[in-house]
């Protein structure tokens, strides 16, 4: 099993696609930093104007911690998309290259191969989110320094500098679970369609539609929300509420872990029953 995992990781990190996803993420984070470095003061003074009428704000509002928090907003669509570009490929590429035939005619079980691919997917997501964390935080702190953070979630939240890193890295860990859940869905689709582009487009379509549905907080739509995985993805924001509502976050973690188990289970069944007839 270890050998198979090593091979899957080797294949993953030998493909240029993996590095493209990393490069896009790094560029995205740097653009956010550079954009705010050049025009951030002006933008924030405009945004905070109404607030200054009621509060006395001392020190720099724009600081590295705030920029890092803002960079985390890419978790809504950008990061999930960049994640599945690679994780979908873990299965679909084997069908596209025809190498699934070569692998499955070796004396290894389908279960072992499936498990190795799942493990490599999780390892990739951890690496990817580590890059997100480093490039969201380090350039921002180097350019803007640190400080308290003002965020708008259910009103104004003042996050003290001391606890910021704990909240930031908790968000990253939570997002790893979210990305594994989303990748499980795209992986399942890859087993159906055996094609990278189709699987990515459908996954992305589901993400966009559910994110949109999530904004409908009235009537019948509000009762759907707890069943939308995007609703649970968005719970990372709760780490930036003064009193972190752990029970609500844990509920979302349970939901996302359940989603992982559900789609991985379906994929496992599908993969084991799959006729490689093409």
């Amino acid at each position, binding site marked *: 099993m270890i050998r198979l995992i*090593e091979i899957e990781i080797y294949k993953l990190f030998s493909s240029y696609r993996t590095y493209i996803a990393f490069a896009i993420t790094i560029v995205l984070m740097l653009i956010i930093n550079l954009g705010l470095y050049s025009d951030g003061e002006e933008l924030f003074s405009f945004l905070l104007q109404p607030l200054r009428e009621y509060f006395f704000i001392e020190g720099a509002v724009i600081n590295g911690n705030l920029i890092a928090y803002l960079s985390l907003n890419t978790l809504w669509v950008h990061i999930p998309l960049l994640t599945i570009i690679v994780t979908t490929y873990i299965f679909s590429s084997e069908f596209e*290259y*025809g190498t699934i*035939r*070569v692998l499955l005619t*070796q004396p290894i079980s389908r279960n072992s191969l499936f498990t190795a691919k799942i493990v490599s997917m999780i390892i990739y997501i951890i690496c990817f989110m580590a890059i997100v964390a480093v490039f969201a935080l380090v350039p921002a702190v180097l350019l803007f320094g640190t400080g308290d953070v003002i965020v708008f979630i259910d009103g104004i939240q003042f996050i003290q500098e001391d606890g910021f890193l704990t909240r930031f890295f908790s968000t990253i860990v939570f997002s790893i679970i979210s990305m594994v859940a989303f990748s499980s869905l795209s992986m399942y689709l890859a087993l159906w369609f055996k094609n990278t582009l189709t699987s990515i487009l459908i996954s992305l379509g589901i993400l966009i539609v559910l994110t949109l549905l999530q904004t409908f907080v009235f009537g019948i739509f509000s009762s759907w929300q707890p069943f939308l995985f995007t609703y649970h993805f968005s719970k990372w924001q709760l780490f930036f509420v003064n009193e972190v509502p752990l029970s609500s976050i844990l509920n979302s973690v349970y939901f996302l872990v359940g989603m992982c188990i559900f789609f991985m289970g379906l994929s496992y069944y599908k993969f084991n029953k799959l006729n490689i007839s093409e």
Partner: protein
Amino acid sequence: MSFLQVENLSLQYGNQTILNDVSFSIPKGKIIGLLGPNGAGKSSIIKVLSGLVFPKTGKLYINNTLQNSFSELRNSCGYLIDSPAFYPYLSAKKNLRLLKKITKSSTNIDDLLIRVGLENVGPKKVKHFSTGMKQRLAIAQALLRKPEMLILDEPFRGLDPNGFLDLKNLLISLNENGTTIFVSSHLLDELEQFADIFILIHNGKIAFQINKEELIKSRKKIIFTFEEKLSIEAKEYLFKLGGNFENELKVDIHLCPSEIASTISELVTLESTLINVETHTILQEKYFEITI
């Protein structure tokens, strides 16, 4: 002695029957040619034998021992199924190394590349390979585990005459060293050159099976073409031998191999203007029956 035996193999995709009660056995150390037109079921048999598709029914015996599933055969076989498949972003060597690691094979990759004639392109990425080079590399993949048996689906596809000759010689040399070879092709001429046993498949069923010795001994269909109309004597002679006149200038007749030379000699004596003699083996006849 049978190396493997397949009994009552049936395969369905949805409502479509692909293989219908197919049974055959493969003796150890022979080259078996699986023949049939496109869509006959050749690739499906090979995919079942490789564990890539799951049959509806069927039993597999290896060395007369009943196996739990067709996937068991993977332990002793090397495969080339459909078109060659590799990771195009890796070199030939790296592709083989990955498989070597999966299979814990002890084969030396450089030796293997020499064996298939790819020693100079080992570090080259596979995406830059020609069809023939990919085909050779696929054979190297199949040989990596030093298998007792090679199962090859259309291995000559896309090869030029030199490539065909090289691959044929490689397969013959492997067979001489004891490897059983099961090879499919829709081109009869390719397989007739070197297979020991021929299995003809049509519409998912075994249509005909013959071994090389029987094939050599069996009567052949000879088609004589003449430049001018035959004399009455010549016509009578051919009628007596059971000749079937397609027209005044063309006649086909079934003869034993030993009778062919004497028949031609007699036709020349009877002043027939023989301009062409075409021979069809019984295998070719059966093949043409189902393909035309």
